[in-house]
């Protein structure tokens, strides 16, 4: 076992120490495909070039495979930066390779914790993303998700542990996922700040300005209104100004204004629009989205609360024990029923099968394996639209008496009445091809891995048991 600092040498970007292999990433080996780091215990990332270090760190931490995203990463030659990802998503800072000694202890602690993690598959995009964050937090002893000001984030704040899975423009999705985790009881919110987002593109990069209520132009001139008490003349201050000196003279009675509050006052302000020539007092406040350039009335901005989230008891144990999602947002898609109704219908179907054994009914589980990669890109609205189209395609290819039920946004069940398992297999094959084509065509050649399993309904088993068996066989 090599435990002496004298023997710490970098050989071909590797350091062997204390039974651990550290892989050194610097600009000379320019790793952009992080799959090459597979098999190494920890990474030492040269942060002399912060931009390069950021790219690599993001690639590692945003990977869907725990082998990568949980891997200990130490930053070498780190200089102070405002980048929240670089600042928060490393496991230690090094100034020389000798520090591998202390870092190896850190890495070992992480490994130990990693072995305690539960590997259950959470059947929803939100669930998988949150589980990933919880895993990371557990292995690093982090108990709070804190928002950090980030000028690069589209909402102005970032939650490094979660946001690293998204691009800067996808930050609003981070808030949605946190809200989801809050609803699931995994985290507990504590108000930190409120942000307002564009109602078109969800960006928080907004430019607020006063505009003319008639033409929405910000090209205006503001002037004080001046009231001259002795003659009751009132008008903009320019009426009182002259080109000779700085004195103010009343245009009605020619008297010089002397003392504010005694012979004149300024009861209000008036704006003159240089674009449409209108005068107004109450300007509209509009915010221009610097991202999509929409000009939005401030009352239509989307308010979002940026909270500090603490892990709840459920959240703390979720990393090691897993958790069951209680909410499902795909229940109301047209043409589908929810899981509860499916169980009831299966119960009646079983009764029918018992009565007439010749009647064959099949159940099928369909799982879109890598669909979360796509959901990540297309957001909640896109996800919803995709599922609606998917249901439409499935509906066209099954009988009207057949039913569809979503278990999650990646998993659905079919009950195919009067269908043998062979026929069901055939139908599912066709559906696989159709679905893959649909997604490929609509989402920039994205190739979805659609997996399915079919089972003939057994009249002697309870509906719930048969669904569990199907799921167990599939995900085992």
């Amino acid at each position, binding site marked *: 076992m090599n435990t002496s600092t004298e023997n710490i040498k970098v050989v071909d970007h590797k350091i062997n120490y204390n039974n651990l292999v550290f892989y050194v990433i610097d600009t000379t080996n320019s790793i952009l495909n992080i799959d090459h780091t597979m098999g190494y215990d920890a990474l030492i990332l040269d942060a002399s070039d912060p931009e390069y270090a950021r790219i690599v760190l993001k690639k590692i931490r945003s990977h869907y495979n725990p082998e990568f995203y949980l891997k200990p990463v130490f930053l070498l030659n780190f200089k102070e930066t405002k980048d929240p990802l670089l600042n928060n998503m490393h496991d230690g800072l090094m100034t020389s390779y000798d520090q591998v000694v202390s870092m190896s202890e850190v890495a070992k602690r992480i490994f130990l914790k990693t072995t305690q993690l539960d590997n259950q598959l959470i059947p929803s995009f939100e669930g998988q993303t949150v589980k990933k964050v919880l895993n990371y937090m557990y292995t690093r002893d982090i108990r709070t998700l804190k928002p950090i000001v980030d000028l690069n984030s589209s909402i102005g704040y970032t939650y490094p542990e979660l946001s690293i899975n998204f691009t800067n423009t996808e930050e609003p999705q981070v808030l949605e996922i946190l809200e989801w985790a809050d609803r699931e009881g995994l985290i507990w919110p504590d108000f930190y700040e409120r942000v307002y987002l564009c109602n078109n593109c969800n960006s928080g990069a907004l430019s607020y300005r006063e505009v003319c209520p008639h033409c929405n132009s910000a090209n205006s001139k503001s002037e004080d209104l001046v009231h001259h008490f002795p003659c009751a003349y*009132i008008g903009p201050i320019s009426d009182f100004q002259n080109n000779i000196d700085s004195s103010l003279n009343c245009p009605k009675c020619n008297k010089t204004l002397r003392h504010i509050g005694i012979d004149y006052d300024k009861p209000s302000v008036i704006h003159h629009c240089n674009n449409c020539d209108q005068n107004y007092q109450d300007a509209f406040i509009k915010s221009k989205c610097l991202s999509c350039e929409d000009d939005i009335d401030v009352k239509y901005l989307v308010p979002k609360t940026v909270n500090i989230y603490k892990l709840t008891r459920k959240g703390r144990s979720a990393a090691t024990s897993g958790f069951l999602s209680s909410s499902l947002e795909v229940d109301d898609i047209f043409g589908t029923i929810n899981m509860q109704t499916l169980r009831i219908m299966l119960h009646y179907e079983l009764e029918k099968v018992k009565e007439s054994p010749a009647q064959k009914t099949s159940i099928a589980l369909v799982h879109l394996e890598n669909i979360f990669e796509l959901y990540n890109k297309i957001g909640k609205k896109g996800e919803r639209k995709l599922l609606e189209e998917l249901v439409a395609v499935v509906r066209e290819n099954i009988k009207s008496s057949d039913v569809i039920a979503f278990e999650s946004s990646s998993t659905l069940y079919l009950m195919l009445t009067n269908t043998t398992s062979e026929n069901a297999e055939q139908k599912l094959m066709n559906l696989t091809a159709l679905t893959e084509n649909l997604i490929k065509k609509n989402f920039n050649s994205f190739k979805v891995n659609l997996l399915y399993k079919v089972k003939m309904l057994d009249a002697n088993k309870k509906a719930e048991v048969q669904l569990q068996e199907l799921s167990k066989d599939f995900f085992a």
Partner: protein
Amino acid sequence: MEYLDEFFNYISSVSPSKLVRVFWFFFFFEFVRFFLVDFTTVLLWKITAVFRKKRVKEGRNLFWAEKPLISIIVPGKNEGKHIFKLANSLKEQTYQNFELIVIDDGSDDETKSICNSLKKNGLIDIFLSNDVRGGKASAANLGLRYSSGKYIIHMDADCSYDRDAVENIIVPFYYNEKLGAVGGDVQVRNYRESLCASLQAIEYTDTISIGRISQSQLGIYRIISGAFGAFKKDALDSVGGWDIGPGLDGDITVKVRKMGYEIHFEPTAICQTNVPVTFKALTKQRLRWDKSLIRFRVRKHRDVFYPNESFRISNFVSFVENITYSLVLNFKWYFYLIDMVLNYTSRLVFIIPMNFILYTINNYFKFIVFSLFRERKNVKAEYFMLYMPLMALYFGYYLRLVRTYAYLQELIFRRSYEDSWNPEKSSRQAKSLKL
């Protein structure tokens, strides 16, 4: 019974010459001016209507051919509750090429939000608000400053207008180029609300409406009501708009007259307003109005009497008539009273009731005769018949006493400068500059 017998004996024994001697104030001043002169001029006005008809029609055609932009200015404080009704009534006007300008003079209620909402919904064209109250004149001047119309109509927020009121008040400008301003007819809307309001309704119907037709015919019309008055924008600009009140309605009319413009009263341009319903409120209003006679007629515009280059005989006559009948005769009435007390002490018990009867008969007669000349009545004349006997008390004693008190307050103490109707900061300046 004995008293009545004696009373009738006294009446029947009074010879015409003695009747005139005893009731000289009535016969020489009030009957002549407020019945004979008014009746003659109104009769002439009615007779000559046939000849005016063609001119008015041509003026109306010209007006419709030009369709000028009219700026309606509504200044006021805490008037938000009335503005929606006013804006809606203006939507009903036969003439629609106008801009409605509402000026909020430092309201401390919901006026600002109400008006902003109305503006947003297109019922108000321009809404300007001052955070600090500056007085009605400054609010009206702010409206004038941002108006674009060829003609300006000044309205009060709590008034409503006949469908053709805006059209009718502007048409006279098109058949008489010399006009600088036109006053509309103000009628009492809430005449049923109290006895006080009913008496004012009679006063408005009789003295104000008919009186103004007569004054207009004689060329001495001098107060364009702030509730409904139209002005040539040029005329208003040339006089610098409104000056500090109270009494700015009369002041602006005089200023326009002094610029050489003629002033016209248009009885077909009808506006309805709410009058004070209690005598306390009415007294406060009339004290303010009456003080302005001293402040503006006697003091500020006394140059009307000077034979300088801007001297105009019509202005001179208008002022003389106004001061004579409102100020001089008001005090002379007290001489009449002393005359009666000293010379007819024993007969006072008969003279006072007879005086009352004489005025009441005159009031009935006038009301019935003048009813024939009224353009449009908002109330049937019969409604007022019951109240007519009280008018002798209302005109002869109540209004006279209020007037006297106001004149004395203004002549001696210049109390108009302390009226809370105007902000103290403006009044202080006006007083120190003797405006």
